[in-house]
């Protein structure tokens, strides 16, 4: 028994390692959340960050399915929507102040969203989790279509097209937060984002969380170690629904309105893209994806009419060339730098960056010129004082030459890196 204990100590990470790997990132995350308001962000920034917080929780909950359990869902917004709708109703009950509702703080909304999301997951997951793989993906699509249609049919629950709105200041103060000013809402979102992130991280450390990964890798083998993979998927699905509902509760307070559009395939597709671009194989991937995509979704459209095309290109590019997403790139880079191999790869990296930049120049020029040509207002794309008209030779030089050059450089960089690794 004694040597067993010693091996046990050897195997498990040491206290210091545990602290460095698990606790420290959480402390840093909490610190970052706490420090942000010191910079005096504008209300626009606060609104954007609040939406980032909501999307971080939402993307992580989506990744409980796709990244952790191998279940591709095209309808995850259903659970955020149902959780959020429930919270909006609860907020209205609070504002009406009847019965015990008057005592419930609006601050606790995400807990209600969590419960509603779990319930929705339990009900809808029962039929849909009996299948995995493509049938599951298709069922999720079908269910999403049905729920979104129901959203328009049942006015008393979903408020029809106009949706249902509520007032976040309807309840009494909690922790000194009236939830009126956006600064208050920021603290609320920060708190619940932290709870959501820690909660979902903790989930990966439970037996069920581990089994969900095992089921993703090899559902058949799971059966032969005593687990029912359908049950594993179903339970994970309920939790994913619950955390999506938590995000719904956060959203209900931030935006104070829910519309049937929140249940539709559009937000489901958006969160799929965010999680994937962030990197579904890493716990932090969807967090990065949510931050980047929320920012781009709200701000890219200020700069170009082609933002949807850019997002699409980016998504396809990630699927094709960077399957581990932003997180994969970040951690890969970090590994190389911390492994002291930076010098070896610096050359090929520089080539690669240059290649990417050239490709970007070419793509952006093509897209911008194409959009202006398509609009037909005779407007000309004028970066850096260059007049790039769709008919001019210069434009096509700016499109073709950097593209060819960039492709060449990227190929060379790939070859160089192959040599380093082999």
């Amino acid at each position, binding site marked *: 028994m004694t040597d067993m204990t010693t*091996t046990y100590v050897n195997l498990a990470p040491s206290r210091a390692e545990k602290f460095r790997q698990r606790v420290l990132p959480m402390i840093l995350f909490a610190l970052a959340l706490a420090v942000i308001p010191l910079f005096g962000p504008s209300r626009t920034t606060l609104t954007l960050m609040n939406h980032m917080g909501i999307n971080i929780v939402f993307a992580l909950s989506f990744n409980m399915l796709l990244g952790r359990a191998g279940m591709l869902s095209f309808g995850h917004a259903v659970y955020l929507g149902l959780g959020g709708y429930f919270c909006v109703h609860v907020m209205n009950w609070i504002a009406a102040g009847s019965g015990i509702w008057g005592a419930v703080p609006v601050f606790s909304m995400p807990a209600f969203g969590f419960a509603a999301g779990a319930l929705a997951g339990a009900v809808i997951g029962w039929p849909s989790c009996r299948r995995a793989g493509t049938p599951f993906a298709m069922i999720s699509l079908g269910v999403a279509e049905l729920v979104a249609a129901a959203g328009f049919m049942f006015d008393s629950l979903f408020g029809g097209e106009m949706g249902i709105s509520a007032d976040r200041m309807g309840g009494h103060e909690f922790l000194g937060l009236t939830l009126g000013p956006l600064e208050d809402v920021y603290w609320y979102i920060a708190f619940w984002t932290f709870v959501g992130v820690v909660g979902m991280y903790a*989930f990966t*450390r439970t*037996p069920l969380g581990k089994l969900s*990964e*095992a089921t993703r890798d*090899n559902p058949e083998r799971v059966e032969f170690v005593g687990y029912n993979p359908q049950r594993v998927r179903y339970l994970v699905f309920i939790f994913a629904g619950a955390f999506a509902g938590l995000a719904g509760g956060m959203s209900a307070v931030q935006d104070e309105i829910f519309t049937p559009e929140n249940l539709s395939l559009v937000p489901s597709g958006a969160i799929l893209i965010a999680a994937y671009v962030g990197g579904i194989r890493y716990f932090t991937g969807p967090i990065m994806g949510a931050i980047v995509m929320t920012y781009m979704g709200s701000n890219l459209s200020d700069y170009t009419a082609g933002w949807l095309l850019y997002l699409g290109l980016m998504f396809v590019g990630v699927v094709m060339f960077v399957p581990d997403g932003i997180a994969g790139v970040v951690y890969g880079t970090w590994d190389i730098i911390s492994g002291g191999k930076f010098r070896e790869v610096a050359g090929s990296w520089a080539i690669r960056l240059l290649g990417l930049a050239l490709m970007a120049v070419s793509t952006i020029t093509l897209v911008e010129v194409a959009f202006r040509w398509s609009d037909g207002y005779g407007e000309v794309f004028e970066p850096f004082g260059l007049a790039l008209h769709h008919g001019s030779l210069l434009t096509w030089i700016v499109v073709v030459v950097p593209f060819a050059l960039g492709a060449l450089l990227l190929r060379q960089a790939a070859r160089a890196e192959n040599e380093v690794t082999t």
Partner: protein
Amino acid sequence: MTGEALQLIDLKKSFGPAKIIQGVNLQIEKGERHAIIGPNGAGKSTLFNLISGRFLPTSGEIWLNGDKISGKKPFEINRMGLSRSFQVSNIFTNMTVRENVRCGVLYSMGYGYSFWRNIGNLREVSEKTAAILEDVGLIDKAHLPATLLPYADQRTLEIAITIAGGAEVILLDEPTAGMSHSETDRAVALIEKASHGKTLLIVEHDMGVVFNLADRISVLVYGEIIATGTPEEIRGDPKVREAYLGEEVEEGVPA
């Protein structure tokens, strides 16, 4: 009948018109090490799949420790104390070696679908996992992702997952297939140690391993058991020599 760990009664399995298992009767005593041999295509893997619940029998019954298990699902059978390995390594590829074994340990230790416990704090689970890794000799590679293991180690891990749950009846499907001589010797030693005091049913092509390990041997040909007995009896059985061993002697390797 009390001493029987596993009992197959007139077991049949057909895929469409093809009758793969045609009426198998077999009793395996508790603590017995039983090997099944036979040419390729005789239905050995199908038999394993029937016993472990992966396939449903067309007719016939299977009893485990006095309970009927035919018709039950694999995970139910596993929980009743029967565990199996696979011919082709069937492990959790994206997890580490330690996590692989831990998945095998969890259910039997009562942590089922628990989502309120931190797996790192489950001391018994960690100890049991470490003990198994130590036993099978993978302790040094505990933190490697399973995909990065060399082939023989993956086979070992396969066995480790199979025995991790502490099942009383263990089914091993060609555990040494594709291993070198020294690797095979190590695997046999491991199997002997791991199956100590347990009931073992093994399918194996390596006759050295079979005759070394088994208390009794059954010969399966075209879905039927043509002989069962001690290694000596089987060696001397003319039917077996004709149907199986003879072939092998002439052609070297079973076709």
